[in-house]
């Protein structure tokens, strides 16, 4: 049932959870590339400059994928 619900949801108007996942994915890729090229951790600002998304929004997106549960939890608890 969870699968079906998720399927339906993903095919409706884009949910925030989905766009957050995209942002997080790009941030993770940018971080890995930076690590490979510079042998050190990039700062949030360097990632932000790379993918053209604000620092705060990147932080939010990375949090969202870390706790996927909170995004799928029903609202009425």
């Amino acid at each position: 049932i969870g699968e079906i619900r998720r399927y339906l949801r993903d095919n409706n108007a884009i949910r925030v959870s989905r766009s957050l996942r995209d942002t997080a994915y790009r941030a993770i890729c940018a971080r890995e590339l930076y690590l490979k090229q510079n042998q050190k951790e990039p700062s949030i600002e360097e990632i932000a400059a790379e993918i053209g998304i604000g620092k705060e929004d990147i932080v939010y997106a990375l949090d969202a994928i870390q706790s996927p549960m909170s995004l799928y939890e029903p609202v009425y608890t």
Partner: protein
Amino acid sequence: MRWNTMTLEFESRPCNESFARVSAAAFLAQLNPTVEEVADVKTAISEAVTNAMIHGYRQEKGKIQMKCVLDLEEKVFQVTVKDTGVGIENVEKAMEPMFTTCPELERSGMGFSFMEAFMDELEVRSHPGWGTEVVMKRKIGVHPEM
């Protein structure tokens, strides 16, 4: 439990604008909005917070309070942005499209018009010397999905 509320208080500095917007968006996420709904709400909040900083406090020190309320049953998001800055002499006039007291700042005078356009309800309470309070509401999940 039908309601959920939060209050955020922060300093009137440009660097705090995006953090305030993200905090509101993260709170609003509990209503499971679409990307567009969040973008609309963020734009409206941005205008209100920028007004508090530029007009309310004239870029001087001051505190801005943002209060968000979620109606979890009706799926309504309400946000109040409040400053204790200079206030507005004539609210009705200030809300007219294109009206601005800072043309030199390259402001468009469309801030209130944007808030009205992106939210379902907009209410402005202001008195000179007391400050300004902007209350906005937006129902989430009404627009039929593609």
